[in-house]
């Protein structure tokens, strides 16, 4: 048994300098990079509302949240770099469409209620997905996830608190919240990925302890957590099949449209093009700035020699 297999079997962490199978390294880089890309692309849908936030307190909260997402992206790219990846190369893979990010960010934000609903549902689903990753076998990723989950949890409560406040407001605001929940519910359920039967990478990822629970287990967990919160809020979740199954001790829910998920993941969602175009534009517009910084640093290094 190799040191790597032994570490996995004993639930110990794999660290950057340890030997690891090439497949494990590649899978980890892909997973961490996709997560980092999701944080960076995920700044866009809510970022669009910072300049329009209706109170200065909400503006500060939203700005701080979007800044946290940039911070998460930064730790995650750093974690990928411990495996030999390069941030610039990963960014190119993102803007050339060779690496993916979470499907949820390909939906548009149409009202300020979306800021609250994204906090509640999207960050809530992200937490369900990510808490088990705090026990990922790869040490730097697992440690980054502990901090990220803490912050995500804070964002989720802020989002929910915004919705509670809006629900105590005018009829127009309550309608705005319900309309937003109607749009985001199904895409949030899709964040857990395809059903287990169609998830080819799950078995290997579970064996390597990169992943701890299947997509369907996590989806169920999210629904069980969220239904009572929806009731407390006073909104209806747009699923006629939704009911508590006393026998199983879980909520029964309808099947998300996985064909839509497949379309959105393969680039056909409503906002895919704009999201990537914005990221590409920032990268291109910033190229001369990065070159200038590198040239200045090289001159300083020359002087120091």
């Amino acid at each position, binding site marked *: 048994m190799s040191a790597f297999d032994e570490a996995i079997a004993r639930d110990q962490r794999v660290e950057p300098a340890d030997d690891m199978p090439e497949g494990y390294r590649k899978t980890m880089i892909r997973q961490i990079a996709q997560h980092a890309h999701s944080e*960076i692309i995920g*700044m866009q849908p809510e*970022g669009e*509302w*910072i*300049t*329009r*936030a*209706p*109170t*200065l*307190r*909400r*503006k*500060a*909260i939203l*700005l*701080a949240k*979007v*800044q*946290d997402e*940039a*911070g998460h992206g*930064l730790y995650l790219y750093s974690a990928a770099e411990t495996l030999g990846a390069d941030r610039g190369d990963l960014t190119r893979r993102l803007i050339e469409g060779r690496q993916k990010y979470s499907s949820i960010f390909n939906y548009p934000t149409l009202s300020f209620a979306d800021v609250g609903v994204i906090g509640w549902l999207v960050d809530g689903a992200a*937490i369900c997905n990510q*808490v*088990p990753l*705090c*026990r990922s076998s790869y040490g730097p990723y697992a440690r980054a996830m502990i901090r990220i*989950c*803490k*912050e995500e*949890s*804070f964002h989720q409560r802020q989002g929910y608190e*915004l919705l509670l*406040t*809006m629900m*105590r*407001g*005018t009829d*127009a*605001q309550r309608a*705005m919240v319900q309309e937003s929940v109607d749009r985001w519910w199904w895409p949030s359920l899709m964040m857990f990925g395809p059903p287990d039967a169609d998830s080819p990478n799950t078995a290997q990822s579970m064996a390597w302890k990169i992943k*701890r*629970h299947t997509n369907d287990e996590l989806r169920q967990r999210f629904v069980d957590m969220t239904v009572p919160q929806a009731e407390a809020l006073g909104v209806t979740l747009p699923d006629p099949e939704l009911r508590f199954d006393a026998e199983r001790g879980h909520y029964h829910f309808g099947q998300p449209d996985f064909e839509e998920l497949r379309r959105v993941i393969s680039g056909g969602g409503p906002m895919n093009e704009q999201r990537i175009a*914005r*990221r590409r534009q*920032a990268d291109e*517009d*910033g190229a*001369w*700035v*990065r*070159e*200038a*910084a*590198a*040239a*200045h640093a090289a*001159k300083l290094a020359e002087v120091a020699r």
Partner: protein
Amino acid sequence: MSFDDAYQALTDHDDDARWAYGTGFTDPLAGVPSEVPPEVDAADLASYCLMLGDDALILSHRLQEWVTRAPELEDELALANIALDLLGQARLLLTRAGQVLECSEDDLAFRRDTTDFRNVCLAERADGDFAALIARLFVLVSWRLAAFDRLTGSRDAMLAAIAAKGVKELTYHRDYAAQWVVRLGDGTALSHDRMATAISAVMPATAELFETHPVEERLAATGVAVDPASLRHEFNAVLSEVLTAARLWPVPFAAGTATYPPGRHRGSGGRDGLHTAGLTGVLVEMQSVARAVPGGVW
């Protein structure tokens, strides 16, 4: 650690403050006396707080527009951080003005029209590229740091406390901007040209920063405000030091040489509510949601 325990840990609310960076859940001015000092005109104090508060609010808005557009992830974080600090300063100053005017920070931010805003016109200018942003940020925060440094001794205890908090933030902002002025000025031929163009474009508009408004004159006489004309020396010293390091000194005209937009003249600028079309655009965007939902609570 079990699956369930990890979720449990997330519902532990005891350490929220640690995760609430910059969102101002605690009042940094708790315990600071809010009475307006005797022989100080309360309306003047409110106007002065609006001047400094609007500078920060509008500059913060322009920085918010850079979110997701920065050249590098580290700058994404830094620019958002500076925008958040300035927004925090704006909130404290508008709240102080609101104590006199009997309204809230949100009334002042979302219910005033263009001509009610008191920021200098440079704060509302849109940035064509990163060099333009850096040039504008550098001159505005250098001016503001010099002003806040003096205001820490203001006879208005509230203003002194706001300034003391702001000085630490602005010191970082000036350092961030100055480092980029140097990197771009010294970096490549292209970046040198762009930085030089940006500095040239921003300098004429700095004249407004050093014009003493009658409100500032009266409040400076009672030890509440700082006379901006007195900040010019410190400002020029910082400017020449940084621009020299950036190989951009001397600039092709004296710092603060005034040129005014058509129809404007000395003493009739942003401090009196005369703005460029840029501010109207900022306010249409900033106030859109607040104004679209009458009676809304957020």
